[in-house]
């Protein structure tokens, strides 16, 4: 009698074949921009199909002592198929003009900043805010983003995640060392000063939060600011007003909004855009006052003073050393850069919000014309 795990691999084979069939069909009728993406997904599914066949032909799959390890393999493949179905296959199946517009915009941004990898696909299918599936070269944006400008700098934050994952040795490792050294120093000082055990423990907990997610989030904000300039800071401010909760308190995946803002400002200072910080900082303080929140006493235990400046310096130096192009400020190029357009949009919004809607419609029309994508 076949083992349960053997039967499950048959289910996998069927699911994989079905998704492969879909990917091939969608690829054959996709726009030329999307065809390489669909072809790549189909190729991955074909390799997976071969692997599943190998497992099914492996006589050891029916050995009871090994069943749990084959079950482990089954689970890994099943999860991959689930992600493929809900990520790339969904994106390809629903791909329309708005997605084409966003994908071409992302491709242009990638060209401008000298993004070191192939531009990811970008679709307006997010079920909440922007998010990325890095393994599938896929960015999800909210449904209305193709018609708006103010949140588009967040695309740069999502692109930065690809860099932190794929160039971890250059970008993430130096930052990990900076953080580790700083917390080691703080722990030693805490010990020397006979801090309460609970406070010393809190330092260790903070360090764990940095290690889990915070460091990458700070790093991605900073790289996005390096590429996009003050516009990213403004987008962050807007995001905090929309989706933020406790300004001075982080959560397991994201550091506190206030600390993220400090990180963004640290990059702007590092890049010599100090004059732009004043306006941002003034609006930030206004938002803090409006929200009636204040810094908690233990804020510095989570975000040691000076640490974000060190990280900002490292991010900028590494980006420069890797040939990535920073935001240069106002420019008069014949074809305006996307980062420049986004900064102009924010400047317009901050100084003349009443006329911004009309301005935005015009800019989006120009961009659609530039990228040769018709309105939906």
């Amino acid at each position, binding site marked *: 009698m076949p083992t349960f795990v053997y039967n499950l691999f048959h289910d996998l084979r069927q699911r994989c074949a079905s998704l492969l069939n879909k990917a091939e069909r969608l690829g054959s009728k996709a726009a030329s921009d999307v065809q390489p993406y669909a072809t790549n997904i189909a190729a991955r599914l074909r390799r997976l199909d071969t692997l599943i066949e*190998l497992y099914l032909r*492996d*006589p*050891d799959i029916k*050995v009871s*002592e*090994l069943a749990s*390890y*084959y079950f*482990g*393999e089954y*689970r*890994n493949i099943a*999860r*991959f198929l*689930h*992600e493929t179905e*809900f990520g790339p296959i969904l994106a390809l199946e629903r791909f329309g003009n708005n997605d084409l517009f966003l994908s071409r915009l992302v491709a242009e941004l990638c060209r401008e900043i000298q993004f070191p990898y192939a531009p990811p696909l970008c679709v307006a299918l997010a079920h*909440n*805010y*922007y*998010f*990325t*599936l*890095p*393994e599938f070269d896929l960015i*999800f944006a909210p449904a209305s983003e193709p018609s708006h400008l103010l949140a588009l700098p967040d695309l740069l934050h*999502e692109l930065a*995640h690809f860099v932190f*994952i794929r160039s*971890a*040795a250059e970008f*993430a*490792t130096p930052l*990990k*060392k900076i*953080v*580790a*050294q700083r*917390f*080691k120093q703080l*722990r030693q000082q805490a010990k020397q000063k006979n801090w309460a055990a609970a406070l010393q423990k809190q330092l*260790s*907990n903070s*360090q*764990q939060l*940095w*290690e*889990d*997610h915070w*460091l*990458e*989030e700070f790093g991605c904000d900073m790289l996005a600011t390096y590429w996009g300039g003050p516009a990213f800071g403004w987008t962050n401010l807007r*995001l905090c007003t929309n*989706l933020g*909760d406790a300004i001075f308190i982080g*959560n397991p*995946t*994201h550091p506190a909004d206030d600390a993220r803002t400090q990180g963004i400002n640290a990059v702007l200072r590092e890049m010599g855009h100090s004059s732009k910080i004043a306006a941002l900082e003034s609006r930030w303080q206004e938002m803090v006052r409006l929200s009636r929140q204040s810094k908690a006493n233990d804020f510095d235990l989570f975000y040691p003073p000076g640490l974000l400046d060190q990280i900002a310096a490292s991010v900028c130096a590494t980006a420069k050393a890797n040939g990535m192009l920073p935001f240069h400020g106002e420019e008069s190029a014949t074809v305006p850069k996307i980062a420049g357009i986004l900064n102009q949009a924010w400047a317009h919004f901050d100084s003349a919000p009443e006329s911004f809607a009309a301005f935005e419609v015009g800019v989006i029309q120009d961009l659609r014309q530039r990228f040769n994508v018709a309105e939906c």
Partner: protein
Amino acid sequence: MNPKETPNLNPLSFRAEVEDTMSELTSLAIEFQENADFSQRLNQAVLTLQKRRLGRAGPGCTDQDVEQARQLLIDVVAQLRQRLADDSAGVAEDSDSLPPQVVQRLREKQTETQYLTQDLEELETTLRAGKEMTNEQFELVDSLLQVAETAASASFRRLWRR
């Protein structure tokens, strides 16, 4: 008036309960990817070593496969020992391939398992010497695998099954 019949005049009453996970999907996707990759590499290595132990001759247990699996396990165990020895619960100064969630779960396990560090040290010695692993050492490796799989499943669930 029955409170149930009171018209809701709160302008925000249309808002449904939302989970506190806005904009965290990228972080979760990355966390899942790290955990899944680690779990898969470890599972494949242990499968190979178990096949050799049982004297199986099927695919995936050539001498080269076994050597690669042994080397992967040495790297994982050495990195784990280093991370567990550092009681600061923090960031690795050097890059390693251990997902933070796996290290965190093993730190918790370490407080329950008195001899975990010592057992890992003995396992590394066995592997480096090219000796056969004992039954207890296979059990230890299985428990590491369990931790890796739990971390991968947990992040997958948070990412996709909310």
